[in-house]
């Protein structure tokens, strides 16, 4: 395909810029990167079009060449295009250099194994050094701009791969001292110096040698990647954020390695050289230089920050945001070492002045105000990271920074914060000065804000501002009754004047501390319930009441609801009314509410309202208080903005339905005890969390036993041993089985949960029951009678029962004691076992040897023979 025309490209670029993701999902996406590279060499396209193609590659290289190999190919192609340019001035050289740099840096291709990197880096360094690259590569008129551009490209690569230029420090220093362009070289050198300082403190490379080495830029040797590799390619913050630097997290300590006196001297000379010519830099670049050097030298031994001092007076006089900000960064980096107490005062005064200077724009004022409240003090007192007025900022200094109603919202809030901080201090110190009391001023200001928010037809922004101010005051001055009382009073008045602000009040109540919330709720509830009757603002009153209604003042609230119920004719009013009922239900209000709900269920015309009233009535009648609270509580499942009905349904689903849950209980089978006419399984429950109303349900596999009844436990608490539960079994035939167990319980949060527990096993021995005890002395006869009755229908067998160390006596007393009819210890035992429902098992254990005893057995149910055999053979092993 031939090159695309200018118009086609314009259209394509337009489509891409409109939405890169949509374009990349389309059919043209795949070819874009390739076409772009190809058409850059087309002779049919104008330079201007090509510049616009390169501009796109500067912004979206990741979309055009998404992986390292594509980026490598692209950078190579861009470099080829650059080399092939005819030796006359061209607008393409700068953007080509920028594009190749961007492609390599973004694509992650920059590295010693990348061919394009190995071509680009020496080329850039050569251009930066202003060397003649031969063949008219750089026309004379472009020499200077390209030199600057090359420096910028190198700076960007150094930013992305710290340590890249560690080997070129000496060269850059030399260039800066000679003919090179001051700003690009200063910025590049300061960044490379900073990164080298960080990396070599770990690597141990000689700084002095790096600073003085004068390698030729076109020396041809391979690029030195040592420092990059030492740094593991980890990015270095160029201007670290202060608290992080303080903690030393991620920022290797620069003090780790001491410099020799010679190195220190050389370093000082380099920094002084940079600072001395810094006035030649643009203000933004000066600021960058100061951030870089300040944080590079911070904590470095033998490098007094006094080097910066000569710059400070000049910088403090300016109105430039970046410069004053950089001075603050130096202040944070060096503190007292660079700023004496007097310097600190001066800086604070200049900052205070700049924060209100009429010649500066609002956004600058606001940033300076922020800086004032985060001022890096020499001796900070308060907790770190919280905005606070610096100690030296006396009320006298601040008087021009206090808010007035005429300020823009953001300025008003920022200044209000300062005023609150002053009020808090004023309270502490009770300093008597000739200045008007900040507290009194605050009160008047708030009154003005409420008055404005109360204006009918006023924009919502004014109301928002008023509530933000109230919130700010409540947060800063929470413990001060002198502030809170008028605040509550003023807000109540505002509500009276403009009930449509109810959503703002609800939001405020949701955010403030209980110190304000509780009294404010009371006052607002009174505001609402004291005005029953038809009112245009009824919907707002109901919305408000739904938030502030609780167990207190029930009768007044219910009276109000009864009075307004008749006026709630529309769906939304009815919903509002029901929301209040719901809030009362949650708060556990019972008595009068029942009547009201009954009335509503009959009276409301809207079927939805009617249903809800009935539902609430039923809930109130049937659910216990805590459960009701949970059922009507906010649902965690529903997103915050979903409608109340959805939230309500979700809440019911959660609270009124049974949840499948992970097991909070464990169940085990206790020791076998023989009691009563039926075999009984002793169950030991154990809870991991407090649970209520536990119901255990059992199911027997097959039809071996009669269905089992459920077992109920009212309360289980972890760590407190529960009474064993007795589960009577009704076997239909004498066989062991497995019980399927389900548990149903209520958690302390009121949710009802269902869980399938691991199965329980009923062993053969668990079914053993004794025969009624024969009269004293009649044992043998009784046994013989049973023994004889087994045959001929039954079965007879002999089994070898191995004996453990405890011998026969031990074995019998441990396992068969309740069933022994005739005993001649330690040699002979006759055992009779009743197997429910109506089988018998008779054992004669006689003539025991050391290792075992022969057992003669008879039963009237031949099916149990294998079970008996297994049982007897396993006895010795069973503990």
């Amino acid at each position, binding site marked *: 395909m031939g090159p695309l025309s200018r118009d086609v490209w314009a259209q394509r670029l337009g489509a891409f810029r409109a939405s890169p993701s949509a374009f990349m999902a389309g059919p043209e996406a795949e070819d874009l990167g390739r076409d772009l590279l190809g058409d850059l060499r087309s002779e049919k396209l104008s330079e201007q079009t090509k510049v616009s193609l390169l501009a796109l590659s500067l912004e979206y290289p990741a979309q055009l060449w998404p992986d390292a190999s594509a980026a490598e190919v692209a950078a190579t192609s861009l470099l080829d295009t650059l080399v092939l340019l005819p030796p006359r001035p061209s607008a393409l050289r700068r953007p080509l250099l*920028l594009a190749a740099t961007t492609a390599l840096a973004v694509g992650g291709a920059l590295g010693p194994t990348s061919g394009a990197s190995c071509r680009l880096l020496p080329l850039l360094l050569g251009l930066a050094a202003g060397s003649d690259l031969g063949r008219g590569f750089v026309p004379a008129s472009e020499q200077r701009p390209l030199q600057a551009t090359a420096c910028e490209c190198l700076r960007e690569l150094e930013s992305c791969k710290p340590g890249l230029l560690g080997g070129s420090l000496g060269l850059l220093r030399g260039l800066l001292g000679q003919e090179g362009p001051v700003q690009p070289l200063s910025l590049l050198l300061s960044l490379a110096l900073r990164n080298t300082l960080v990396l070599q403190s770990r690597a141990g490379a000689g700084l002095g040698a790096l600073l003085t080495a004068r390698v030729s830029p076109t020396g041809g040797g391979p690029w030195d990647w040592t420092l990059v590799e030492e740094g593991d390619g980890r990015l270095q913050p160029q201007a670290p*954020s202060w608290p992080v630097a303080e903690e030393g997290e991620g920022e290797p300590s620069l003090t780790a390695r001491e410099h020799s006196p010679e190195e220190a001297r050389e370093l000082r000379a380099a920094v002084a050289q940079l600072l001395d010519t810094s006035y030649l830099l643009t203000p933004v*670049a000066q600021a960058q230089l100061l951030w870089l050097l300040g944080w590079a030298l911070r904590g470095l031994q033998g490098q007094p920050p006094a080097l910066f001092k000569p710059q400070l007076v000049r910088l403090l006089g300016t*109105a430039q945001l970046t410069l004053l900000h950089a001075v603050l960064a130096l202040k944070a980096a060096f503190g007292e070492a660079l700023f004496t107490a007097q310097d600190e005062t001066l800086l604070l005064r200049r900052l205070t002045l700049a924060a209100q200077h009429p010649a500066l724009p609002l956004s600058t004022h606001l940033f300076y105000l922020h800086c004032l409240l985060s001022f890096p003090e020499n001796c900070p007192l308060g907790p770190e990271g919280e905005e606070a007025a610096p100690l030296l900022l006396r009320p006298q200094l601040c008087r021009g920074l206090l808010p*007035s109603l005429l300020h823009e919202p953001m300025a008003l809030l920022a200044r209000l914060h300062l005023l609150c901080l002053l009020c808090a201090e004023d309270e502490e110190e009770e300093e008597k000065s000739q200045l008007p009391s900040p507290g009194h001023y605050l009160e008047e200001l708030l009154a003005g804000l409420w008055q404005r928010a109360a204006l009918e037809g006023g924009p919502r922004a004014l109301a928002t501002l008023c509530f933000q101010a109230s919130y700010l005051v409540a947060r800063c001055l929470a413990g001060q009754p002198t502030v809170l009382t008028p605040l509550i009073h003023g807000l109540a008045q505002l509500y009276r004047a403009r009930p449509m602000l109810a959503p703002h009040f609800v939001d405020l109540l949701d955010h403030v501390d209980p110190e304000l919330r509780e009294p404010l709720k009371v006052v607002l509830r009174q505001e609402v319930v004291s005005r029953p009757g038809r009112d245009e603002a009824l919907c707002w009153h109901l919305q408000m009441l739904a938030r502030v209604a609780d167990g207190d003042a029930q009768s007044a609230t219910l009276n109000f609801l009864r009075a307004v119920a008749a006026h709630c004719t529309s769906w939304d009013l009815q919903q509002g009314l029901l929301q209040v009922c719901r809030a009362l239900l949650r708060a556990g209000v019972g008595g009068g509410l029942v009547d009201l709900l009954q009335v509503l269920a009959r009276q409301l015309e809207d079927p939805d309202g009617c249903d809800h009233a009935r539902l609430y009535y039923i809930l109130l009648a049937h659910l216990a208080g805590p459960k009701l609270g949970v059922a009507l509580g906010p649902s965690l499942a529903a997103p915050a903005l979903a409608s109340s009905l959805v939230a309500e349904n979700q809440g019911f689903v959660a609270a009124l339905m049974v949840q499948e849950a992970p097991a909070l209980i464990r169940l085990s089978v206790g020791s076998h005890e023989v009691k009563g006419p039926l075999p009984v399984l002793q169950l030991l429950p154990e809870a991991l969390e407090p649970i209520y109303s536990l119901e255990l349900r059992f199911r027997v596999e097959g039809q071996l036993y009669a269905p089992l009844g459920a077992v109920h436990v009212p309360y289980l608490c972890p760590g407190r041993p529960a009474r064993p539960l007795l589960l009577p079994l009704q076997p239909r035939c004498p066989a062991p089985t497995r019980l399927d167990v389900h548990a149903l319980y209520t958690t302390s949060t009121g949710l009802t949960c269902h869980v399938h527990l691991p199965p329980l096993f009923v062993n053969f021995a668990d079914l053993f029951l004794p025969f009624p005890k024969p009269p004293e002395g009649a044992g043998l006869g009784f046994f013989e009678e049973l023994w004889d009755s087994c045959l001929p229908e039954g079965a007879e067998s002999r089994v070898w029962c191995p004996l453990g160390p405890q011998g026969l006596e031990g074995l019998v007393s441990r396992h068969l004691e309740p069933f022994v009819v005739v005993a001649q210890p330690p040699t002979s035992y006759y055992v009779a076992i009743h197997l429910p429902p109506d089988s018998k098992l008779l054992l004669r254990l006689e003539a025991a040897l050391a290792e075992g005893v022969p057992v003669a057995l008879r039963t009237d149910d031949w099916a149990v023979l294998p079970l008996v055999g297994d049982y007897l053979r396993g006895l010795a092993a069973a503990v």
Partner: protein
Amino acid sequence: MAQRALWLISHEPGTPLRGTVRFSRRYPTVEKRARVFNRASYVPIPEDGPFLKALLFELRLLDDDKDFVESRDSCSRINKTSIYGLLVGGEELWPVVAFLKNDMIYACVPLVEQTLSPRPPLISVSGVSQGFELLYGIQDFLYSGQKNDNELNTKLSQLPDLLLQACPFGTVLDANLQNSLDNTNFASVTQPQKQPAWKPGTYKGKPQVSISITEKVKSMQYDKQGVADTWQVVGTVTCKCDLEGSMPNVTISLSLPTNGSPLQDILVHPCVTSLDSAILTSSSIDAMDDSAFSGPYKFPFTPPLESFNLCYYTSQVPVPPILGFYQMKEEEVQLRITINLKLHESVKNNFEFCEAHIPFFNRGPITHLEYKTSFGQLEVFREKSLLIWIIGQKFPKSMEISLSGTVTFGAKSHEKQPFDPICVGETAYLKLHFRILDYTLTGCYADQHSVQVFASGKPKISAYRKLISSDYYIWNSKAPAPVTYGSLLL
């Protein structure tokens, strides 16, 4: 220090989207660093469409504030700086530096070189001030001397090329875009080594230095017990130095007459090379006394090529130039107003113009007016509910003039008559607009003989002065009025 992206968005109320992205630029190398530094808290730069929507919402420019929206109106979402967090695609993009000026929104996202959770304090993020400076620079470039939309469009179309010079990789090299424009023009000149980066070339031609001092005076007058009237002068000294040589040195001295008011709160241009400590410390924060430094104020500097603001200052003159009172009373269906203005005798009685604007807010159109004035003419803008009293070039000999009358209003309709949250009921103000040429209220002047220029050739030196009113309010003394803390200091 770098910026991840920047946008210019024109605010267009009434259109479906309420705005259009006029220009945007992304910096992918910085974005790559952001992803590494921000780690799990990284939020990518959105495309223009979603960004526009989120920003307009945050700045409350979507004009749909009928309902309470928690993510915008909640009392806990307090913004005290022009730096925002924008909700885009369920994540919060922060910090977004943005401000609105002349219907254009300027926005950028500075790189934060650490994780964003917890958020570091803004003061510790170097890119914030850099971002502001870049946006201010773009604003200056777009609106300096710009008169119409065509010029604006031309300048917008120059931006991509200029930013390729001024901010090629997201790190700002020069916030003054005019320099970048000149840079392209001066490119062919071989520069000497000590050429400042903020001076793209050298001037060739007749040497001349022009200095103009503009003072703005603002005032709040209440005519009330317990509330002090306030006034303040804000001065700007603008210079244009056409001098040959790469680094000509100039020193300008500002002087005051014997009874002149000391200059305070002086902020200087970064090209000023040194400052007297008396200049640095003279501040309006301190109580004034006779020992205050009263000049001459010397400013040695190396001038840039273009016109620049050498310094700003404020001053507290002993009396306001025009002292007045305004009384307004509601009398059944009409308002009765009485206004009295008095020019101070020390002030030059020779105005370019002088007017008093008397607006009536939150009322209907003016239906009837009866008035009597001792001087000047009254213009009535019935629909706007506004009276303009044109005083003209001179106050009469008595230096005192008055206006009284009654005004009646029709029914209020919200669309046409202005709403004002402050001027409710009888709270009202009148605002003075005036300009006096060749005059400063402080008396401050640049003595032509004291201007020292160290450059070849003797330059022609010209100096200009003017006084302009700005925010000069006189409040109705018969009703409450908004006061500042300063007004309570009696």
